[in-house]
């Protein structure tokens, strides 16, 4: 949809422009990066924050939800770093290489960069931008060009730090890499992080991102990950947006997936007051198997939006998408999924399923599962359901002596479990399931 001609800028848009102008000289990067930022900001400035008349943001009117833009985060002090130590506790039991980003800045002393596996390279983005890393020159902003997306353009303009990861061809990274993003500032700030991961031919790696913020502080987070998955590579990506935070969180994943690859993606959202989780996936080669799943549990007046575009630029790929949303109180859940099969992408096999479970009469579920097909020899389908817990199932359990609350918990667990089952890492799977149980327990009280 064409952006409308707008003359009046909102307070948030004006202060974003001010922040950008003030931060410009200090943001990392040489001439090329400066030009990239400048062009991106110009595009953002022309469109402004997305609103409900922009079709892709129909259900998440960021212009209305973000009345003001918070100041850019400063460097974390010792106290902030101390507060950050407890971050990522959901995954404390998982043996992972942790990379800690406090208020958008990489903190080496809290991170584990020791004994990198053969073929694994990790650098902070700020450093890579400053030193003109060739990996960035090749891939940054080019993996799945999302020029039209206002969240991505804003991120490109203001990105400060993040991780740059390269897994060399054929290398297997045994320990999952856990990127811990935590906002600790006591006053609300805006944080823009950007990461790039290149998984070369035949390599294997698991990436986990977790995002959290201090409870009650309305941080504004805009984070993006560009992911390149080479031919025959095997990559897992998990994103957790959790905690008790009241952040406005906009996340974007842009993944280009090569031929005969295996790709598993899982998004888990329980935190944030307004969350927009975008996944832009492109299948570039034949014979890839992909599993894209997600679970969202919302309460209070939380709003979470999962927007996914799976673009089959090559044929012969098999892709399964399963997204589950549990909505309590006055929360609002949004799922927008789109499968594109381009002309010539024959033998594509894509199935998308989205289910919403409404636990309260005031909750709201909006779903928009789209298909856009230009090839005839394909199997594509989507399903969408929304409704309350099945009274018959509940009755069955209660007739067997299970108290009502417990019966509900069991049923919701089973509902969400469908998606969580797809996580390959057993420890992570258990941790997520435990978190769901804890969420349901907290609900009862």
């Amino acid at each position, binding site marked *: *949809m*064409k952006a409308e001609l707008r003359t009046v800028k909102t307070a948030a848009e004006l202060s974003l422009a001010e922040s950008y102008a003030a931060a410009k000289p200090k943001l990392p990067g040489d001439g090329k990066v400066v030009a990239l930022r400048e062009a991106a900001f110009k595009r953002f400035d022309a469109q402004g924050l997305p609103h409900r008349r922009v*079709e892709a943001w129909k259900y998440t009117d960021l212009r209305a939800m973000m009345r003001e833009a918070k100041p850019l985060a400063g460097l974390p002090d010792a106290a902030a770093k101390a507060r950050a130590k407890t971050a990522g506790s959901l995954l404390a039991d998982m043996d992972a290489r942790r990379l800690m980003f406090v208020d958008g800045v990489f903190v080496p002393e809290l991170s584990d960069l020791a004994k990198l596996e053969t073929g694994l390279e990790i650098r902070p983005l700020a450093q890579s931008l400053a030193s003109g890393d060739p990996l960035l020159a090749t891939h940054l902003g080019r993996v799945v060009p999302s020029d039209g997306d206002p969240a991505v353009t804003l991120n490109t303009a203001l990105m400060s730090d993040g991780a740059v990861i390269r897994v060399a061809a054929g290398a297997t990274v045994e320990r999952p890499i856990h990127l811990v993003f935590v906002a600790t500032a006591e006053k609300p700030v805006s944080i823009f992080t950007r990461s790039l991961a290149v998984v070369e031919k035949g390599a294997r790696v698991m990436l986990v991102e977790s995002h959290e913020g201090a409870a009650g502080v309305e941080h504004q987070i805009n984070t993006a990950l560009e992911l390149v998955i080479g031919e025959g590579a095997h990559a897992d990506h998990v994103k957790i947006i959790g905690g008790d935070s009241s952040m406005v969180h906009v996340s974007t994943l842009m993944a280009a997936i090569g031929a005969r690859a295996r790709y598993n993606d899982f998004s888990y959202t329980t935190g944030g007051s307004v969350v927009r989780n975008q996944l832009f996936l492109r299948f570039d080669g034949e014979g890839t198997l992909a599993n894209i799943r997600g679970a969202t549990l919302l309460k209070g007046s939380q709003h979470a939006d999962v927007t996914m575009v799976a673009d089959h630029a090559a044929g012969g790929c098999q892709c399964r998408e399963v997204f589950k949303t549990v909505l309590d109180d006055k929360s609002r859940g949004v799922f927008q999924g789109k499968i594109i099969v381009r*002309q*010539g992408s*024959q033998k594509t096999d894509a199935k998308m399923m989205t289910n*919403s479970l*409404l*636990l*309260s*009469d*005031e*909750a*709201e*579920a*909006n*779903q*928009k*599962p*789209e*298909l*856009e*097909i*230009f*090839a*005839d*020899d*394909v*199997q*594509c*389908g*989507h*399903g*969408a*359901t*929304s*409704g*309350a817990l099945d009274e018959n199932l509940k009755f069955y359990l209660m007739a067997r002596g299970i108290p009502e609350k417990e019966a509900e918990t069991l049923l919701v667990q089973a509902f969400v479990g469908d998606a969580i089952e797809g996580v390959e890492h057993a420890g992570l799977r258990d941790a997520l399931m435990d978190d769901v149980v804890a969420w349901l327990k907290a609900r009862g009280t």
Partner: protein
Amino acid sequence: MPAVQETIERVRRIDVDQYKYGFVTDIESDKAPKGLSEDTVRFISAKKSEPEWMLNWRLEAYRRWLTMREPTWARVNYPKIDYQDYYYYSAPKKKALASLDEVDPEILKTYEKLGIPLREQEMLAGVVRPEGEPERRIAVDAVFDSVSVATTFKEELGKAGVLFMPISEALREHPDLVKKYLGTVVPVSDNFFATLNSAVFSDGSFVYVPPGVRCPMELSTYFRINEANTGQFERTLIIADKGSYVSYLEGCTAPMRDENQLHAAVVELVALDDAEIKYSTVQNWYPGDADGKGGIYNFVTKRGDCRGERSKISWTQVETGSAITWKYPSCILRGDNSTGEFYSIAISNGRQQVDSGTKMLHLGKNTKSRIISKGIAAGRSDNTYRGLVTAHRKAIGARNFTNCDSLLIGDHCGAHTVPYIEAKNSSAVFEHEATTSKISEDMLFYCRQRGLSAEEAVALVVNGFVKDVLQQLPMEFAVEAQKLISISLEGSVG
């Protein structure tokens, strides 16, 4: 296919020989000056000898329209329409008089050619009546360009209390009824095309079924655009009063012309307590030639309002024609326990673009809706299903089932599904499923092996695919629709 062979002599060009209604009736007509202005609106209103309030209603719509922008969200591409390049009113000279015998023989011939009987003793062509079954009759309102030329069986319908007449006549004879309901389902400012229609609509059908009456026969309107560079803007208003039932059929065709013609209709249905309206359409406007030249731009707003409790509105459509289709027959489920249904087959071939679907707005308690949509894309066409199902806070127990399937024939066409599903209360249960696939080679092989030609095999499989929808059509249309399906797909194999 035999049906096509028969019609070869009727068509001018070989490459579009599948469109058999493309002839032009040579008839003198009375037109409004080309272009659109307040004067055009006044001209139309004066032609119809409308009351003052109606003229003001139109003028208000026209002024509103000037401030509106043409919508661009649909998945269709067409060059910018010059709204000043159309005739907004065109009527055959020698108006229809007291009896059918006085209708211009050219027009009668036209309808004869189209297989639509305007003489009351005749039946729709192509229907074979089973032995022993009483003769089925259909009342027809024939709309030719901007005016209704004939309405049959008016007397007999009158005995049952059913009003069936051109809307222009209803405006004169039953102004209170029209005033009460016109624009209450599709408001004047509803959307760009509906507002344009409100300003310049020239004719259409008006139906009122009194309380408790089951309409004794099927009602039908047959729309024909004949004149070049004309837009047809018809307006249909159907009111089913408490406990009544009516089944209404609509058919449309147009001659083959190189330039695009505009058709922007509005259909409003109102069902009061316990009433049921069944509205069926076989849309077969000229789709343009193989290169996408010519054809009708079909921008239609159709909406039914289940205003009363336990009311029911059912839309059935077979869409095979038009260069561009932009059409979303909808149901507002306002009354408690009301039901909305939408059955659709949309077939696109050549360079046709279809963006069609439905809206089911659940407002009342225990409202139910059902959507079955089958899209078939062939050639270089694009076929989009776009639908909205929504349950409001107070729509306790709302229930929807949606099934939209697409079938692709050939690898240059596109099939798209854009459903919006919005649940605002937990007791609403919505299910949606959609698939896209190609005709199974196994099925085709099975048919071929048993001696069917490739085209016959495709037609058979496709007929099976759309059976769910065809079953919903009144018998007269089902026959025609089945023929249409085989015709539209001709040339798609190979």
